[in-house]
């Protein structure tokens, strides 16, 4: 039934679908996105399953606000000649009191850090109580625990950066706490402090850890975590009436399979 296309449909096809097809044919990007986003989930999921996404949003907010804060922050313990205070603390004061909306972005980053950690624990509790860590999702639990540890390290390293009395002494306690670990502890403590006590290199080192090394690890772990979620699917709640492991209905081979771009029968059989 060859219906005549409307003008609107023609424009959509020309400006959106054609370029997308062009990209998809060369990269499988559109198919990958569909595979990642348009998944079957149990019909009896609830708001509890959104905690993981909430954590992701909190992390994204931390990344965005952190990048903006890095444009104004100075990781230096040297004394600012104008204020007579350390440059790091002066830049924090500058962000909070003088930069337009700086108080808001810093507040989002500071309180958002707590939100991120709280959401991680709530999400972990949901996974635990729903038994969503069981076969075949054990590895994703392990990756999640690594994300939790890296997230806590973000909090630990970020706490020093305002370079005020609370930040300094809390970090001294944290470093010395690490120092009491048997055998390797004193070495770890001295590396973290940049010497027997916190020295002038420590602040820049912790800044680099906080904004380069640990976030890099965290983002990599999150990608693995999300891939495993997409691959293994969402588990139905323990009270679900639906049987697990239902066979999927058979599908007609896709256009890509017909064109020989994917092997017929393997597409979407995960």
């Amino acid at each position: 039934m060859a219906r005549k296309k409307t003008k609107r449909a023609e424009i959509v096809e020309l400006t959106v679908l054609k370029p997308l097809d062009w990209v998809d044919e060369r990269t499988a990007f559109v198919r990958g996105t569909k595979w990642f986003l348009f998944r079957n989930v149990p019909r009896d999921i609830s708001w509890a399953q959104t905690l993981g996404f909430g954590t992701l949003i909190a992390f994204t907010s931390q990344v965005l606000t952190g990048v903006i804060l890095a444009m104004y922050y100075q990781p230096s313990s040297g004394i600012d000649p104008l204020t007579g205070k350390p440059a790091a603390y002066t830049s924090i004061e500058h962000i909070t009191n003088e930069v337009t909306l700086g108080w808001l972005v810093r507040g989002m980053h500071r309180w958002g850090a707590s939100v991120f950690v709280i959401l991680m624990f709530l999400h972990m509790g949901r996974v635990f109580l729903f038994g969503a860590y069981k076969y075949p999702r054990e590895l994703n639990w392990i990756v999640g625990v690594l994300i939790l540890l890296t997230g806590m390290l973000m909090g630990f390293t970020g706490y020093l950066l305002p370079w005020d009395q609370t930040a300094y002494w809390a970090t001294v306690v944290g470093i010395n706490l690490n120092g009491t670990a048997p055998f390797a502890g004193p070495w770890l403590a001295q590396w973290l402090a940049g010497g027997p006590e916190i020295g002038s290199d420590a602040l820049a080192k912790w800044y680099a850890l906080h904004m380069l090394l640990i976030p890099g690890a965290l983002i990599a772990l999150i990608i693995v975590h999300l891939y495993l979620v997409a691959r293994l699917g969402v588990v139905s709640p323990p009270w679900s009436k639906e049987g697990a492991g239902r066979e999927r209905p058979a599908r007609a081979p896709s256009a890509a399979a017909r064109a020989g771009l994917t092997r017929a029968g393997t597409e979407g059989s995960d």
Partner: protein
Amino acid sequence: MWPIGFAIGVAFLLLGLVISWWIALTGAILGVVFGLLWARDVTREVRGDVPQIAPERRTAAALDGPEEPLPAYTRSRFLEASLIGLSAALGGILTLPVLGFMVLPSFTDVEEDEVDLGPLENFPEGEYVIATYLSNPEQGEVSRRTAFVRNNGFAESGLPSFTILYSRCVHLGCPVQPNGPIDENAMTTIGDVELRPVLAQSFGCPCHGGQYNSEGNRTAGPPVRSMDRYRFSIRNNRLIIHDLYAVGNVTGTGANATIHAYPWSVPGTHVDGISAWLYPIVPSQVTS
């Protein structure tokens, strides 16, 4: 087993760069030997067994017969192995200096100079004075440290006696405060050194409630040993403080005190008893 030996070798090499050159040499030798053994083990499958070539027996009949192909070490296998080897070598060459740059500066050149706290007249007998100073003037205020100095007069031997406590709590390193009023008006400044008399014969830590008596012995709270002390000397009637040492316990008071001294260790760690064995080498003991 080989990778473990290789890792131990690398660890010794890095440790040796901090401690002494012969440990570094041992580590380098261990690393090279175990690295080669490891490489040999890993590539065994790629290389295949060494072919057993039968001794040649030249006869006219054999020369005419069809040649048997020798077990070959093919070009692709050779290239594969050399690519893996080259990548590993390049990776090592690139990674080791970067790792060293990341780790070593915290452990080298960390010794702190002696500090001149000024003339002895500023330290009245039997009273504590809070002395703050820059342990490393190049680093500026971040290196400001605090010592509690008490002039004990003269010991039985006739030598002058001082009790000089380091202000950092031996629980987890918070700044211990004297339990008494500080006379800010009587502050004396000698260069970067600031001296403030204080009416106190005990000390307390604000973080977790550790309490110490006038000799730095723990009286309450979580600290695991007595307060750290400075070695000192007197030069031209001026008080000079040197490096820190840890104190297990002090018996007696002032000039008559018996101090159980140990090499300095990080806060929160025991210096005496069985649990001291958990901290065999404290880095600043060997690098300063």
